[in-house]
């Protein structure tokens, strides 16, 4: 119980520090939000307009009082309004959360599924041709940025074969290409870890015993070794999922996917500080939640941790 409380207190402290940091960084960075917003349509605003808008947005007040007001609002659950289109920030972000969750969820399913299948195969037949190809492919995928993988997938699958849409969220199958792009980036990390763990577990006495007792190799790996290797993999999966949530930014822009990442990119470009602030807080919170969830899963999978 005290452990849980400490965890919550730690999380709050991290979030507070993070909010101060983002507020300072976005506010002190050169560039005037009022001018950026007025100039969006390509018209150079007059100094008078910029001054009036600065007043309306409260940008003429001292930094500290602005931060305090923002923080008090957040404590009441009010994240303020977007500088750019005056829409309430919380509603704006919440409306985009489902799309990002769908993308990151599908991507992590692909990442975990692929990692498990390939690593089990590698444990069963480490010298088989497909295991070796998988090994090389993992390194190759890890080395190519998701943007390039995405472009390749678009040009081959969407343009060449016309099998899937190039982007947008217009049909149920539209999630496949962005999820594969994002998932492949996670697979590489996960796969290397899981394969190493499985190899280490395979050398443990209980595995040898299982084999000696005449248990089939498949059963040995899938039921016994995989479960013993799971804790490390689950922790890694948690980290990967958190990375996917945050890393969806590039993939969402490339595939015109209406998620939180795309919103953040636009907001950063326009110096829409309220949105950037909320995005950073939300991503941090999601990361903490996912990692805590991973810890819980580990304790379920591995009785040793519970004590």
């Amino acid at each position, binding site marked *: 119980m005290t452990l849980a409380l400490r965890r919550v207190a730690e999380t709050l402290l991290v979030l507070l520090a993070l909010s101060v940091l983002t507020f300072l960084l976005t506010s002190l*960075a*050169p560039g*005037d939000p009022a001018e950026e917003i*007025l100039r*969006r*349509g*390509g*018209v*150079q*605003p*007059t*100094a*008078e*307009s910029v001054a*009036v*808008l600065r007043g309306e947005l409260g940008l003429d007040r001292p930094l500290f009082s602005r931060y305090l007001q923002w923080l008090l609002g957040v404590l009441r659950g009010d994240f303020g309004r977007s500088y*750019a*289109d*005056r*829409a309430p920030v919380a509603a704006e972000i919440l409306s985009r959360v489902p799309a990002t969750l769908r993308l990151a969820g599908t991507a992590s399913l692909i990442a975990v599924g692929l990692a498990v*299948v*390939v690593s*089990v*195969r590698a*444990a*069963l*037949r480490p*010298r*088989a041709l*497909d295991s070796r190809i998988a090994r090389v492919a993992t390194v190759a995928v890890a080395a190519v940025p998701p943007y390039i993988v995405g*472009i390749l997938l*678009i040009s081959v*699958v*969407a*343009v060449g*074969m*016309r*099998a*899937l*849409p*190039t*982007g*947008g969220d*217009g049909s149920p*199958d539209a999630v496949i290409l962005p999820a594969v792009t994002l998932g492949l980036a996670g697979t590489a990390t996960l796969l290397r870890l899981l394969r190493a763990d499985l190899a280490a577990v*395979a050398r443990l006495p209980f*595995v040898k015993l299982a*084999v000696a007792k005449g248990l089939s*190799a*498949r059963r*040995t*790996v899938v039921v016994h*070794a995989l479960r013993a290797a799971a804790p490390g993999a689950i922790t890694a999966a948690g980290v990967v999922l958190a990375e996917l949530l945050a890393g969806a930014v590039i993939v969402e*822009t*490339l*595939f*015109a996917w*209406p998620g939180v990442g*795309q*919103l953040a990119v636009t907001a950063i470009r326009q110096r829409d500080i309220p949105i950037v602030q909320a995005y950073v807080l939300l991503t941090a919170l999601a990361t903490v939640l996912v990692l805590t969830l991973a810890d819980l899963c580990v304790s379920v999978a591995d009785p040793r941790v519970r004590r």
Partner: protein
Amino acid sequence: MDRSRRGTRFPISAGTRGGVRPGARAVAVLGMAVLAALAACGGRGSAGQAEGRLVLAAPRDLAAGPEDPYFTHRTLRVWEPLVTLDDEMRPAPALATGWERSDRGRRWTFTLRGGVRFSDGTPLTAEAVVANIERFRRIAPRPSAFFSLDAGMEAAYGKLAGVRAEAGKVVFTLAEPVADLPARLADFYSMIQAPSAFGPGGDFTGKPVGTGPYMLASWSKGQRVELAANPGYWGGKPAFDRIVVRTIPDANARVAALRAGEVAGLIDKGALLPGQVAAVAADGRFRVTRTPSVLTHYLTFNASRKPFADPRLREAVDLAIDRKAIAGKLLAGTAAPGSPFLSPVFGALSDPGVRSAYDPVGARRLVDAAGRPARPVSILISSSETGQFPYTDIAEVLRTDLEDAGLPARVNVAEATRAVMEAGDYDLFLSAYSVPNGDPDYLFRRFLRSDAAWNRDRNLGYRSDAFDRLIDRAAAAGGADERRELYHRVQRLLADDRPMIPLAYQDNPVVTSTAVTGLAQSPAYLVDLAKLAPSR
């Protein structure tokens, strides 16, 4: 025995020898499933154009929501303005069929088109027009995704004393004469919608209610806008019943969607990047339309410090630059070399007498005479502009051109160019400017007049009484000939003083599939969606 021996090396793999290979089978099954799935949904028809329905894409969202002064971009043709601009940026009738000037430009009377109804069925009246103009003035300054409203709206309406309805006509009364009010009002600043569309605060209460050929059917922010033909449109029914405009921000993804047949065209500012045009144009399935735009690439001098406080060195830079190479090669032929300050899209106002020259020898002579600067000059570019135009390459070419002339230079790519310029820490600034309403007064008054914020705060160091007087006279000039002559004099003056020099006039290439005809684009990137039709 065999098992345990091998087991020390590969304890698990031993049992699979000669037996089933579950992993391999799983991989194979998975692979087959993926291929089967792809094959099943393969052969997707061309979704870009179906019966009566057209799908296009744009780099940005062409709707901006109820808090935006306009809700939708002019291109979507949901609303219409009083006055629009023709291909040469001259004012042309839209909802106003004509206008009359009296009291030497202090009073303008606009006659409205008859028989026009808003999409909710209510008629267009002079009172409705007045309500729209008053709303603009009430909510200004107001940012917009398309065309921000400045405090006072002076750029649009001048010093407006009042606007009222008189016998079915709309009368603007001005405190000071404005010679070109219709041009200033053109498009965005004279948007007319049913007054019932606005709430008491000036925001939209629901969807926009305009008089245009299309109505906003649905909008999914950042994703897609769907338009439906307006059955009561005064100008006749457009060819497509429904038009969808998707937002695809990534340039490569946009062209991919076009190639995949998901969209039948790309429109709006920056639809195709200069580097993409040749490949798309070579594809027989597409028709690229290139029209000159209001965007011009300029080089701005910091003349408030050495070395460019010396006019000889500004002239040297002007002569040293190979504009043909920049426009033809780096901008891939999507731009024309720049000469007069106002590009040809300004029509007669652009002064054809001003010619830029490429003379590296002359440039070198000028540098020798003025003396080489002690330190390299700094060429500033904005990192946000490098995504749309190859500014890093252009800056690199500028650097070599200057060094050939004896001016050592370095390139500085900055995120927030404003801070750098306000600190005065630059010598040359490469940037694109546009004049979306085609009003040269906007450009001169906002950028170069002695009291212009741009000139003063960003250390351009340009002070010229002659220039200030000329642009003030041109703004109040009554006759078109007088105004043209004054703007030509302004451009000749700028060609000598060189506070900013035009490098290239940018086109805006847009594209449709050959199955669609009628794509035309104004210099301000406006497309008339109602003119699009299926090819026969």
